[in-house]
């Protein structure tokens, strides 16, 4: 960073204008949210729409509030969060390990390629009944579903990153006498860091798809359960409330990855 005192007048002006612009954007974002919520609330209050079908912000808040006083709010959040995070971490860990293995062995990669393609194309929900039979109707089934949804994406994303490693840099390291292991640790893994982060971002979304899908099929608790249950008993406040909580959780998880990115990818702007 340069000393700010050294900047010229024009640069100060430029910085001020930039800052003003970014504050404006923030205000507009929040304003838009308030506007949408306002219209929603108003249309329910004035009877333009049927709050029984479309719910309303105040009813959603009330529902979440009552879940909280019943003491079940954090229980449901905890269940879903635990399932999602478990599935997410297992998928990232094993998926990346599998991608490393496939990078290492060309033969293995060629053999498994069609399997990966088919598994990727398969809608995982089709495996629902099988998962219930194999894993029972508890959290295990849901974690399994989450892993299933995520792991192929992780493998394909990371394998692609590993394979795309700069050929010239490989040549250079090999001319220095590097073996395959050194290629991996000195070059392939560090140069795939950016792809690893982007893979995490994609996988965050996938893991929520997996866990909620799992909870739709089998569950006795969790946000997905609340959504299904609310739908069955026609309590759309509950459906909307759970969905809102889901949105915030997914957003928080995404920003954790962004934070990680800021920590890890400091010096690699090229």
């Amino acid at each position, binding site marked *: 960073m340069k000393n700010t005192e050294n900047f010229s007048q024009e640069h100060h002006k430029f910085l001020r204008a930039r800052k003003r612009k970014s504050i404006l954007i923030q205000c507009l974002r929040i304003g838009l949210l308030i506007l949408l919520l306002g219209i929603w609330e108003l249309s329910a209050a004035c009877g333009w729409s049927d709050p029984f079908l479309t719910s309303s912000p105040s009813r959603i808040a009330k529902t979440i509030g009552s879940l909280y006083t019943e003491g079940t709010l954090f229980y449901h959040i905890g269940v879903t969060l635990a399932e999602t995070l478990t599935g997410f971490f297992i998928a990232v860990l094993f998926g990346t390990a599998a991608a490393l293995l496939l990078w290492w062995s060309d033969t293995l990669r060629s053999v498994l390629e069609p399997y990966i393609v088919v598994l990727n194309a398969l809608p995982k929900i089709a495996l629902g009944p099988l998962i219930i039979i194999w894993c029972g109707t508890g959290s295990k089934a849901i974690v399994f579903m989450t892993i299933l949804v995520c792991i192929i994406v992780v493998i394909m994303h990371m394998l692609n990153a590993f394979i795309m490693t*700069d050929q*010239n*840099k490989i*040549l*250079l*390291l*090999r*001319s*220095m*006498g*590097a073996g395959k292991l*050194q290629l991996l640790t*000195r*070059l392939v893994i*560090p*140069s795939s*860091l950016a792809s690893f982060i982007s893979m995490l971002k994609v996988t965050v979304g996938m893991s929520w798809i997996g866990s909620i899908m799992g909870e739709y099929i089998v569950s006795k608790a969790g946000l997905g359960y609340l959504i299904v249950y609310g739908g069955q008993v026609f309590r759309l406040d509950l459906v909307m409330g759970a969905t809102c909580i889901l949105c915030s959780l997914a957003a928080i998880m995404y920003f954790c990855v962004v934070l990680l990115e800021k920590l890890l990818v400091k*010096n*690699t*702007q*090229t």
Partner: protein
Amino acid sequence: MNEILTFDHVSYIYHTKRDEIEALNDLSFSVREGEFVAVIGPSGCGKSTLLSLAAGLLTPSAGSVNCSGSVGYMLQRDELFPWLTIEKNIYLPLTIKHIKTKEIYERARARAVKYGLGEFLASYPFQLSGGMRQRAALIRTLASDPDVLLLDEPFSALDYQTRLNVTEDVAAILRKEKKTALLITHDISETISLADRVLVLTARPARVAHAHELMFDGVVNPLKRREMSAFSGWFEILWKELNA
């Protein structure tokens, strides 16, 4: 002087699914210790293949390649690792070869300081200009003290001004360190300003078409050579041979 690198009737064929591509055919030459040899040839004739063979990264399809020393490879782009500092980049060959001796690291570091990278040791490659990055790449190549330097168009990615300067620097560094070098290039004037000897290759599959000793009355400085009267004579000769 003794020969440090010999190509003896070397052929190399790339096998692909569709085709076999004969890159080198019956290529013979040798490089003596301390000599600066340039190889020029039409684009795609097999020059990079020749270097890969010299570095032992490829095995000849026929004939034999003999190199009695260690090699250092320098490529067209600097290929510095963006996630390592310049200092760590320079130590890379030492890390790869598991060299632990402190003096060797000290020497690499001292070389960086000597050739003007001292204040950038803690910087990352993106903070350096193209010319400085290429200089860093050379110092990295020299870190493990290779006997033969293999240079694959190391200046061609630089703009003209930087290129003249870096060529000058590199020539000075290599002469000072008394290194043997095999330089590959497209650039005729670069060849004439740098080399002791030139090999002109034919189009693919490459063979040695002509070889010349470049006599400049002992002048090795590239810019001085460019000003000498023999320069344009050599340019014409090599130009004709390259386009024959």
